């Protein structure tokens, strides 16, 4: 095995570990939606730092690989894609942190907590999607990378419905309704970044820049 191969394997392993952490964060958010828990919410907020460190470390590794080993062709794409996925994962991690913040803030607001609980299945969808994506990255499965974004479309539709319900039912006061709908947006944004990762996987496997937004 070439030194370059070993280094790239190591780099991608770091990205996969980072992915695991991010998924763990979102799983915890799902738990929080179902069963509000002050200390778990604090832990999620706190763990965001770990994810940020992962990104810094991946960027450092990537720079060293470029400078010292001068990757080209597929090798170069592996490095670039590692950097890009790490950057999207970091954002997805940020959204977990803001979800946890939201829970901490609304623990004593039963109306909001109730709606949150109903929304937990959407968060579950996000978790599944992230798991599928990291699996596609691991196995460099371009077919899966093309398929997964349909999950984003479904998720988007669910969120739309939910937002309507929140507004129609006139739950709690206006401020709570507003907060909730911005929380749903964080789920939507996470899913958008997840779709970006699918694009990076396509680039990795095929060397083409694909844009899932332009599809329809």
């Amino acid at each position: 095995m070439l030194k370059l191969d070993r280094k790239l394997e190591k780099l991608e392993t770091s990205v996969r570990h980072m992915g695991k952490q991010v998924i763990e964060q979102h799983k915890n958010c799902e738990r929080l939606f179902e069963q509000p828990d002050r200390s778990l919410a604090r832990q999620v907020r706190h763990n965001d730092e770990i994810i940020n460190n992962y990104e810094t470390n991946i960027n450092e590794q990537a720079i060293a690989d470029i400078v010292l080993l001068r990757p080209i062709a597929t090798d170069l794409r592996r490095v670039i894609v590692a950097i890009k996925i790490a950057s999207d994962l970091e954002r997805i991690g940020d959204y977990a942190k803001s979800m946890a913040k939201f829970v901490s803030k609304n623990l004593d607001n039963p109306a909001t907590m109730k709606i949150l609980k109903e929304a937990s299945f959407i968060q579950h969808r996000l978790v599944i999607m992230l798991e599928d994506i990291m699996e596609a990255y691991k196995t460099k499965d371009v077919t899966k990378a093309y398929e997964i974004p349909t999950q984003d479309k479904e998720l988007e539709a669910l969120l739309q419905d939910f937002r309507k319900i929140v507004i129609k039912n006139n739950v709690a006061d206006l401020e709570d309704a507003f907060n909730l709908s911005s929380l749903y947006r964080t789920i939507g944004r996470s899913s958008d970044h997840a779709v970006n990762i699918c694009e990076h996987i396509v680039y990795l496997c095929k060397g083409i820049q694909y844009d899932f937004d332009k599809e329809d």
Partner: protein
Amino acid sequence: MEEIKFDVKNLNLFYGDFQALKNLNIEIKANRVTALIGPSGCGKSTFLRTLNRMNDLVDGVKTNGEIRMDGKNILSDKVNTIELRTKVGMVFQKPNPFPMSIYDNIAYGPRCQGIKDKKVLDELVESSLKAAALWDDVKDRLNKNAMGMSGGQQQRLCIARAIAMKPEVILMDEPTSALDPIATQKIEELIDVLKKEYTILIVTHSMQQASRVSDDTAFFLLGEIVEFDTTLNIFSNPKNKKTEEYITGRFG
């Protein structure tokens, strides 16, 4: 539209019974740098030498097919090879200055062509040395023996010598393999400048050099051209698995 300098069609070359070039088809564009890469013995130098019929000098060489330079088949018997080699100059792996003064090294070719006028020769020597980025180094010692120059200077002298013949094409066969990184960089910079006026083909074993200096790259393997594309495509997303294996050092 880019002009095509050499249009090679179904080119085969045999050293006796051994076929060194197998049905090559390639269009070399004018005013671009084309890199020829591939493992040792794959036919890069042989191909380069077909472009100015230097292989004619080797016993038992048989060539067939077509090489059109600006539309004219240079493999035809009617071609004046002396004239062809004036138009298609060559720089070799090891700098090979003549054992004479720097000035005479450059003036040698033009004198053979019958240029005697001292003033014309002076100008030619100066402009050629300038074009090869050597003038400032040697302008005060033009009458010193060229053998006393550094390797990098000698190689630029050889480039200046080629330029003095007013060629259209410059062939370079591993021109920096005997030079240190600084001299190498100077030659690479020079190639970048020269391509405005000349069509350049360069054989190199350094993938980095190929990617730095060339616009197009041809990958040779066992006498065939496996892939020919822009250098950017070859080094970012090669189509052929063998090309990728070679350029990334995973070959064989």
